[in-house]
């Protein structure tokens, strides 16, 4: 019973975002393939975005856009927090640019004849 109450208190979005961060971290640290590391980074990025957005999530409120459901007078009583949304919006776009840069480094390293495993570049990863 007690464990169930603890479980009910956990925010499902933040929990799944945190688990995705951990999964991505595991992939970054444990996998040797450069492309797999980039995939793990993008999974981690999605997890971080979910965690940030869940901090401003207020149950049962509408999106921060004025329409018939929420007019200007009752805006702060009916809408969710817009600040994390603005932050995550910019983070997603930067994430694509950083992923593309990461992948072009990987392509470049591989074209230089090094293979796609991170362990073939000089020292061991650990």
């Amino acid at each position: 019973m007690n464990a169930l109450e603890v479980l009910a208190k956990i925010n499902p979005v933040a929990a799944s975002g945190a688990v995705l961060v951990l999964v991505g971290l595991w992939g970054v640290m444990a996998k040797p393939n450069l492309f797999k590391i980039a995939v793990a980074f993008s999974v981690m990025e999605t997890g971080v975005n979910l965690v940030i957005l869940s901090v401003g999530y207020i149950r049962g409120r509408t999106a921060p856009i004025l329409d018939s459901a929420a007019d200007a007078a009752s805006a702060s009583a009916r809408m969710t927090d817009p600040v994390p949304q603005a932050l995550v919006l910019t983070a997603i776009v930067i994430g694509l640019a950083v992923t593309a840069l990461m992948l072009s480094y990987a392509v470049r390293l591989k074209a230089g004849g090094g293979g796609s495993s991170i362990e073939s570049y000089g020292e061991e990863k650990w």
Partner: protein
Amino acid sequence: MATDIAILAAGILMIAAGVGAVLAKSLLVSIILSGGVSLVASAVFLLMGAPDVAMAEAAIGSGLTMVVFLYALARSKQADAEDSDERVESPASETGGAV
């Protein structure tokens, strides 16, 4: 309540797809699964009242990121095919499956 259940189901789906993306032996499968994580995440963003973020995540996270990954993969395969006769690599380092 219905929203909570949908978010919970989406969370389990995302975690499963994320673990699959890290574990998959084939890079193509892992790229597609990471795109799936982003797609489910954009549905979650929509349920949480963030349509702006949901649009960006659906278009960028699961659309363009996958295209970028696939182009990069194609180019590295191309580089492989061109000098595969000169260079012999161990298959374990290619698949990335070995931990």
